[in-house]
């Protein structure tokens, strides 16, 4: 327990002194993860909603596939993205390997199925409620999708949060495609992995605390927003 408390103290010290390397790493973590989750939402929300709201051939297969892909091991995603972005891979000429963009791509691949699968579950209930009314009003497919997503927006925030949680905590994929290069692609999780491998367990744990606090703050903010929406029956 001693090392636990000293790790907590070290975390406090790092935060209070506004360690510039730490700020850079946190900044990059947030930039990569928020961008990846945003893109994952742009792709995953409509896909999930479409699977929930429309009948089409292969719908069940797609739903099962999305659920299965939620469990994709990050290392596998990292390898796939590495092989794609490697100089010898199909997208090698873009020169994206070992850049934050590569990390965003990997996390997007990782998070999109999560967003889509959870969106399907959220929208399915809402669609059951709205389907007959929308059919009566003659709402077009695209408008139905938009209305379901908009009316489910507060519930869907939890979906985005789940994606955020997965992405911000993920190390296996970003360390492969980012390379954990100092001042270029080093983020919270790869730093924790590096410090652990250097045997600096206290520093690693301290960084872990900071990561936890960030995740907690993001979750608390979204939950507060949702709670206020529930009071107005918008959620």
């Amino acid at each position, binding site marked *: 327990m001693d090392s636990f408390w000293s790790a907590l103290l070290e975390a406090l010290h790092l935060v209070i002194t506004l360690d510039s390397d730490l700020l850079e790493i946190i900044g990059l973590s947030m930039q990569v993860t928020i961008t990846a989750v945003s893109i994952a939402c742009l792709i995953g929300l409509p896909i999930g909603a479409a699977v929930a709201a429309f009948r089409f051939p292969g719908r069940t297969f797609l739903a099962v596939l999305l659920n299965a892909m939620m469990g994709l091991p990050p290392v596998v995603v990292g390898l796939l993205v590495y092989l794609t972005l490697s100089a010898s891979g199909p997208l090698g000429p873009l020169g994206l390997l070992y850049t934050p963009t590569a990390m965003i791509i990997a996390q997007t691949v990782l998070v999109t199925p999560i967003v889509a699968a959870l969106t399907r579950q959220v929208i399915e209930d809402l669609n059951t*409620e*709205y389907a*007959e*009314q929308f*059919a*009566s*009003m*003659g*709402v*077009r497919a695209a*408008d139905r999708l938009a*209305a379901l997503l908009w*009316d489910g927006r507060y519930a869907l925030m939890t979906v985005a949060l789940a994606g955020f949680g997965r992405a911000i905590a993920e190390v296996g994929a970003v360390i492969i495609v980012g390379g954990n290069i100092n001042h270029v692609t080093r983020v919270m999780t790869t730093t924790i992995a590096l410090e652990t491998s250097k045997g600096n367990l206290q520093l690693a744990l301290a960084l872990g605390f900071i990561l936890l606090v960030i995740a907690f703050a993001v979750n608390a903010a979204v939950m507060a927003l949702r709670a206020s929406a529930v009071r*107005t*029956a*918008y*959620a």
Partner: protein
Amino acid sequence: MRDLSPETEGSMSTAPHLAHSPPILTVQDLTFSAQKTVLLNAVSLNIREGSRTLIMGPNGAGKSLLLRLMHGLIKPDAGTITWKGRANASEARRFQSMVFQRPVLLRRSVFANLSFALGVHGLRGKLKADKIRAALHDAGLAHLETRPARVLSGGQQQRLSLVRALATDPEILFLDEPTANLDPASTSAIEQLIMKASARGVTIVLVTHDQGQAKRLGEDLVFLQDGEVAETGPAQTILTAPQSEPVKAWVDGRIYLGSKAGY
């Protein structure tokens, strides 16, 4: 529509001026089964343009199902539905509205709920906003404009869904027991809105269990029993002097056990 005099509550006559009005919607030999149970069997009826037609019958008679089939929400197994003399194409729904027993309102403000419905019909901008404000004003809901729709009382919610159904200027309005869950004051408010719409010429098709409401609103009546039309004709006649056994039982408040019962 035409020389329809303004109706008042309790008006009972089957409007003689409608006797010659053509059917706006015709149902011919409509049959629908689910899980091998026949829910509607060879149902035929006419809905006269501008009329107020009641669909009545005991629970499980197939009233709500018939309403959904007429509105095109469900496809029949057999039979035809004709809209103004033509096979009921999907565009016909553009001229129809429906109010469900439990109002389905979007998780938005009162204004936004109407805005969505009118947007579906292609209205935009100031034209749309003006129309929404006028509709809310007519229904006495203007002060609730910015309120989240789902925090309204049950009666207000149903009034809003009726206002929404009428805002798109339908030619026919289907209502599925719209006042089943409401208190007398809210019921009265809904009935007034229905009568106002009727006075503007909107054809009304109403499923109800409420005999008082049937007497207040009914012109034509279709009585369903076990998925078949038991009796059809002017509402007042049927309700005061029923001819068929099922309707007699229903008016007396008995459960009709069917022709086979007791044997």
